[in-house]
């Protein structure tokens, strides 16, 4: 192999996987590096993003949401992307890589089902066979997305092991891949996992921040003071951050799920409350016991219910370039309803976390402030779940 990409972000990241998977990861890295230099690959990717998925997505200035006159709040509308969330961007990229590597099958994990839906649609489009692992608990709370995936021809495999959520689905996907790498690509759904996934996922999502920069300059003539994104594994956040990392005037704010509160054990705030360790192939902040057993995370939002975070976020946190805050279920549910009522937009519960934090910032602002929230997805998938919560029919989560 001629050249490698850096495998770590500071001390974070790496390739902590069974030896068996190393050739598959090397092959992926090579295919990605080649594709980045290949004009025809880039044209096909950009073409799909534009004509199939609907990029660029709008940057919408909120009209009624913020009462503080000093604050201007924009929403980057990834909710309008085909598939209903930002996930479609990088999935199209990795699906094209799958074909480039001559593989015919795709394995994926999914939490909220958004990555599964994006994988299913890309595989339907590009003639790939998809099998998608999903925690049994998530199969239940994200039922509409399960039906969507199956409609588009994907096989959805419920995972009962462990907590029956995203972490267990990733375990199962990795196990599958270690037997099937000859034919199958593991299309990992967030900016976590072993190298090269965190880098590939970031690069295939970086148009979120690039478009935002261009759009806000057109509309406001200046860069935002802050960009805010929710953090599960960290893909929509790193996609938004990537093009702003070298703009020191722009605050980068990631929002983790505080669940029932950071003082409880029921949250998914790996950076705020976790410690350093290895989960799913990467060294990062993870939620673990004092013996190093992985703890189960919790969030009302399935897409944020993950006990680790992508390694680049751990690094950005440590060097102080990005700040990570957290928002409870309650605050996220309030923001979910508020955006619906004030702007006529129903956000995903994941994205509602970012929005809730931005609203907290707006309330406290004493100076002019220009904020962009990455509205990473739409709330259709959450309607039944939120309806039940609001009717008091279910325990949150």
């Amino acid at each position, binding site marked *: 192999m001629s050249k490698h990409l850096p495998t770590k972000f500071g001390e974070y990241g790496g390739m*902590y996987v*069974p030896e068996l998977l190393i*050739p598959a990861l090397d092959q992926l890295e090579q295919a990605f590096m080649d594709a980045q230099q290949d004009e025809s690959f880039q044209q096909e990717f950009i073409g799909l993003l534009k004509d199939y998925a609907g990029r660029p997505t709008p940057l919408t200035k909120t009209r009624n949401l913020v009462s503080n006159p000093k604050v201007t709040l924009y929403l980057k509308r990834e909710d309008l992307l085909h598939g209903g969330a930002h996930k479609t961007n990088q999935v199209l990229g990795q699906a094209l890589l799958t074909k480039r590597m001559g593989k015919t099958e795709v394995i994926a994990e999914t939490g909220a089902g958004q990555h599964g839906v994006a994988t299913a649609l890309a595989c339907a489009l590009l003639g790939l066979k998809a099998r998608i692992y999903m925690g049994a608990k998530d199969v239940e709370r994200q039922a509409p997305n399960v039906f969507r995936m199956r409609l588009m021809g994907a096989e959805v495999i419920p995972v009962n092991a462990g907590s029956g959520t995203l972490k267990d689905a990733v375990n199962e996907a990795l196990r599958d891949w270690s037997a099937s790498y000859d034919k199958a690509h593991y299309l990992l759904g967030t900016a976590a996992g072993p190298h090269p996934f965190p880098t590939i996922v970031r690069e295939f999502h970086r148009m979120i921040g690039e478009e935002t920069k261009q759009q806000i300059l057109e509309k406001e003539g200046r860069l935002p003071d802050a960009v805010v994104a929710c953090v599960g594994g960290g893909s929509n956040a790193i996609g938004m951050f990537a093009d702003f990392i070298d703009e020191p005037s722009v605050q980068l704010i990631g929002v983790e799920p505080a669940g029932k509160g950071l003082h409880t054990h029921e949250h998914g705030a790996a950076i705020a409350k976790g410690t350093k360790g290895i989960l*799913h192939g990467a060294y990062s902040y993870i939620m673990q016991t004092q013996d190093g057993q992985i703890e189960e995370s919790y969030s009302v939002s399935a897409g944020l219910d993950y006990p680790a975070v992508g390694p680049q976020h751990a690094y950005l946190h440590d060097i102080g370039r990005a700040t990570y805050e957290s928002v409870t279920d309650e605050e996220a549910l309030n923001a979910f309803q508020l955006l619906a009522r004030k702007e006529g937009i129903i956000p995903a519960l994941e994205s509602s976390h970012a929005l809730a934090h931005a609203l907290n910032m707006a309330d406290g602002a004493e100076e002019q402030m220009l904020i962009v929230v990455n509205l990473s997805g739409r709330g259709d998938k959450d309607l039944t779940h939120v309806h039940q919560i609001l009717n008091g029919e279910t325990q949150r989560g």
Partner: protein
Amino acid sequence: MDRYQAMFERLRESGQGAFVPFVMIGDPSLEDSLEIIEALITGGADALELGIPFSDPIADGPTIQKAAIRALDNQVRPRDCFALLTRVRDRHPDIPIGLLLYSNLVLSPGIDKFYRQAAKAGVDSILVADVPIRESAPFRQAARDHGMHQILIAPPNASEQTMASIGEFSSGYTYLLGRAGVTGTETAASMPAGELIDRLKAVGAAPPILGFGISKPEQVKSAIQAGAAGAIAGSATVKIIEQHLHDKPMMLTRLAEFVAGMKSATVYS
């Protein structure tokens, strides 16, 4: 003298390969583990491969996953495992003992401290299932510092570069993967592994022991015939525990019988 080296020499002199059973420490309980290990040794195990239970074992199939869950449900902690290892070592001063586990359990106390504890408990080797050679330097260093072997995996798809590293860094024995995938007897090891064994010999690797998908004496026999120094059976051993959870005497009898059957297949013919 080094216990693996002594074992390989003893076996070579008597025309045998090694049979190495794997079980999870604390499955189904710590006290049972002690008796289970005695049964394995009684049956004729040449060395032991023992797991410390981890919550997210990505290299394991359903059988060993369930063993880890049973142990964790019994609140078995790494320090309990070390205490048990110490007792086994006291009773059996010569048998090689290998640990097989996942990286986060090692990182939790710190690599150096973990290896120190293992060495003190009488462990001879450590295999970290999710640490490939590429990430293995600090683990190999700790193993050297504490007089143990870091076991490396030779997968069927190993590149030339991986093979060369195994030649350079392997110590104790080389864990030869019989096939792709995760642990489990659902898919049998693909035989013969002869070509891979020849490549390992050519690079001067530590003696190869074949694992993954081994459940029958015939497989042990063909592994030895293909040039392996021994065979490891994990899921097949653990399965016997799982099948007799409510009848311990039967569990112990069946385990000893199983090991004896596998061991008898290690004699060169």
